[in-house]
């Protein structure tokens, strides 16, 4: 094979791999979105989220500054 053919083959291979990478990223994102949707509809997830929020709220109440005047 001459040099010109090799260059063209290299360019085609690189374009194909870029397209493949983009397609793979898009499908991975689509899968991730679908999975998140699925998880959000799950009751276990909702109760877990509530749990986290409750704990966070409890933490804020308990942990952040109390103000006191000591006479």
């Amino acid at each position, binding site marked *: 094979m001459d040099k010109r053919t090799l260059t063209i083959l290299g360019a085609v291979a690189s374009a194909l791999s870029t397209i493949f990478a983009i397609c793979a990223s898009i499908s991975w994102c689509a899968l991730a979105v679908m999975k998140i949707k699925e998880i959000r509809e799950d009751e276990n997830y*909702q109760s877990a*989220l*509530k749990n986290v*929020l*409750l704990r*966070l*709220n409890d933490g*804020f*109440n308990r*942990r*952040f*500054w*109390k*103000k*006191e*005047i*000591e*006479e």
Partner: protein
Amino acid sequence: MKIGLVLSGGMAKGAFQIGALRAIAEHFPPEKIAAISASSVGVLNAYSFATEKLDAAERMWRNLCKKDSRSFVGKILRGNYLQRAISDITDPSDRIAMPFYISLVNIRERTLVHKNISGVLPGFYPDYLRASVAMPVYNRSVTLDGHSYYDGAMVDNIPVYPLLEKELDLIICIYFDNCSYIFENLYFDSKVLRVTYPTKQFILDSVRFENKNIDMMIKLGYKLTREILAPVVECGDDAEAVCAYIKRLNEKSGVREMRVTGDMLVTNINKVVSKLAKNKIDS
């Protein structure tokens, strides 16, 4: 007329308060002050005022600058000298006659304490002063009554809170960020006379422990406070006239800002999280 005094923290800018306190002492000596609340370096200045040692405090400020450090880091580290300088203004015979609140933070218990040190034994005054200027990382915490404390200015730099219930007619508030804050509620706010240090170099001025700068701030503090206090002195015991004067000053100052303190921030974050949690639980 019942007068209160509030002094904020501000490291090297604290020298401004010495000048301001000199001007205040000319018309309102310590025995005429009903209550004091201070944080950080303001505690040292207020203590000197309450124990009639403003000369010693001025000397303390000048001693801090004796060895002028040229490097920025050196200037910052000089803040550490504040703790060591406490012995210049304290004496075993010191007595504080009025309620004197200092702001302290207990990081482990997440508590901001406004401690009235007029009630503690005079021998413990230096420990409380050390705690009030103990900056985390710079200094170790100071253990008092079994709790370890740091400088309360980290949570609330202008500690007006302890004076809310004192039914004062005038609160002279000395702070450094040149903003016309709205304090707590409108009734209380109408009694707060603001003395601010006009600077745009808020951080740089905090670490400028240089003789020239300290001198300038003491003089400026005296001059500005005299000017601001003159109409108050003319009002005599007429609290309503003083309120009217403060109202005029506030109108002149233009845009007024809500004060954002660490305490206010966490209270509001807490409210948002509570609401979010409640919505999610109800849904």
